[in-house]
């Protein structure tokens, strides 16, 4: 931290720094909310905040397309669907609270702790490629061409999987009781 305050930063760098730490703090708080709050709706909102924070960080890294798609998919679709299900299944009263934990606390604690240790150990020792790649890799045109040329097979397979899921959902929802 001392190094941070000794170097003179330009206003733009300050703006970036303030934004980054602000967003990072918000994301951590929101992520904790997702796993600790006992009201499912509140957890879903926390998830939305995490997704928005991630999108903001993508934006700061110049990955515009990824950021906007992140918002569109995670906030616009995933969290909306979760919230919709909560509202359809819970009544308007806030009486129903869920437990976020089950009886496997010890085992899951060990697993999570080992994963955390692994990350702490690995992240500083890994060599990260921090140079900005030449050309606008993440722009819409390049992505579109890649989807319809090089990756046409996976793209189509994913579409079919989604279609099957869609039809399956309709069949399940419309099943008539005998």
């Amino acid at each position, binding site marked *: 931290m001392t190094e941070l305050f000794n*170097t003179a930063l330009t*206003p733009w760098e300050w703006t970036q720094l303030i934004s980054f730490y602000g967003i990072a703090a918000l994301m951590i708080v929101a992520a904790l909310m997702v796993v600790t709050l006992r009201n499912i709706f509140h957890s879903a909102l926390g998830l939305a905040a995490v997704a928005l924070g991630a999108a903001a960080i993508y934006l700061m890294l110049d990955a515009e397309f990824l950021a906007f798609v992140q918002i569109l998919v995670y906030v*616009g679709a995933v969290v909306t669907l979760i*919230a*919709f299900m909560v509202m359809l299944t819970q009544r*308007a009263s*806030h009486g129903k609270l869920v437990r976020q934990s089950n009886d496997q606390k010890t085992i899951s604690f060990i697993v999570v702790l080992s994963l955390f240790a692994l990350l702490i150990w690995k992240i500083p020792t890994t060599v990260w490629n921090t140079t900005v790649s030449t050309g606008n890799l993440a722009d819409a045109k390049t992505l579109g061409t890649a989807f319809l040329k090089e990756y046409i097979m996976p793209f189509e397979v994913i579409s079919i999987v989604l279609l099957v899921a869609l039809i399956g959902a309709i069949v399940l929802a419309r099943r008539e009781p005998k």
Partner: protein
Amino acid sequence: MSLLELTDKLIQWVSEMARTQGYSPEWAGFFTAIAIMLAVGGFVLGFISVVAMLLIWMERKVSGHMQSRIGPNRVGPFGLFQSIADAVKLLLKEDIAPKMVDKPVWWLAPIIIVVPAVLSFLCFPFHKGWIPLDLNLGLLFIMAIGSVSVIAIFMAGYGSNNKYSLIGGMRTVAQIISYEVPAILAIVPVVMLAGSLSFGQIIEAQSFRWNLFSLWGIVSFIIYVISGTAEINRTPFDIPEAESELVAGYHTEYSGMKFALFFVAEYTNMVIVSMIASAVFLGGYYLPFGLGASPVWMLLKVFAMIFLLMWFRWTFPRLRVDQMMIFGWKVLLPISFANIAWVGIWMALKL
């Protein structure tokens, strides 16, 4: 002077001020950063509230004349200051929070609903080079940021802990999700032909011939205007806040300034929908056939579109929920797909 130069001037000015006050350069930089954030935020919020107040006055005047009334005419010339009087009244009102509401969610909802509306102005194309930030993915940005307002409506509906609010919130979200699809698909042919998602390039592609002047353009425009009306919950798609059924829908429990924020968001979204329609189909700041370009045309088009939306509101009766869903999924969606296919075939044959 472009906006960026203006910001640069502001940065220099504030850092100079901080330095003369005897702060070290790094603290001067910090203060400048904070000052810029506050200045930009304040300017944008002020601009948006003025626009919203003007539109509320316009709506009341338009509705008045459509119903053979005069509309507001007491406060100021032509009742122009009526909205200011209303705003003052709303500011002074007691802020009532019902006892059983879900406090944090209920409290945050009106704040969050304004955010996407404000952010969308980032891509407002006033004139060539007069776009605050001409993102390469401007259209995608507005579509993405618009989906955040769904969350805010959910929060208002759920947090109010009220049956009417809950039903209103769910109806709104179902409606917005359904009509977002044809709205985006209606714009796709334009993006295909312009080869870009940026507002600047889409408008430049229409410098001679607007996108409206073709069969696919008319179809896309009509689909977009209908879906846009549905996305901002205006009559004939005002099912979410149908007064006769749901009191006021998701904002039933809000009063004072919180209610005003919902209002500001609604009218700002109206500006955004009109802006997209004008920029994407009506040539933005260009007159047709190379007759000229000016920010005046852009603003006139936006206001014409807003007037059209107001005209809809005071002419059409409200749709039923099932009619609305059927219309969205079974009528608009197939037509917009057919439109995309038609433009695609046409492009393939031409190339």
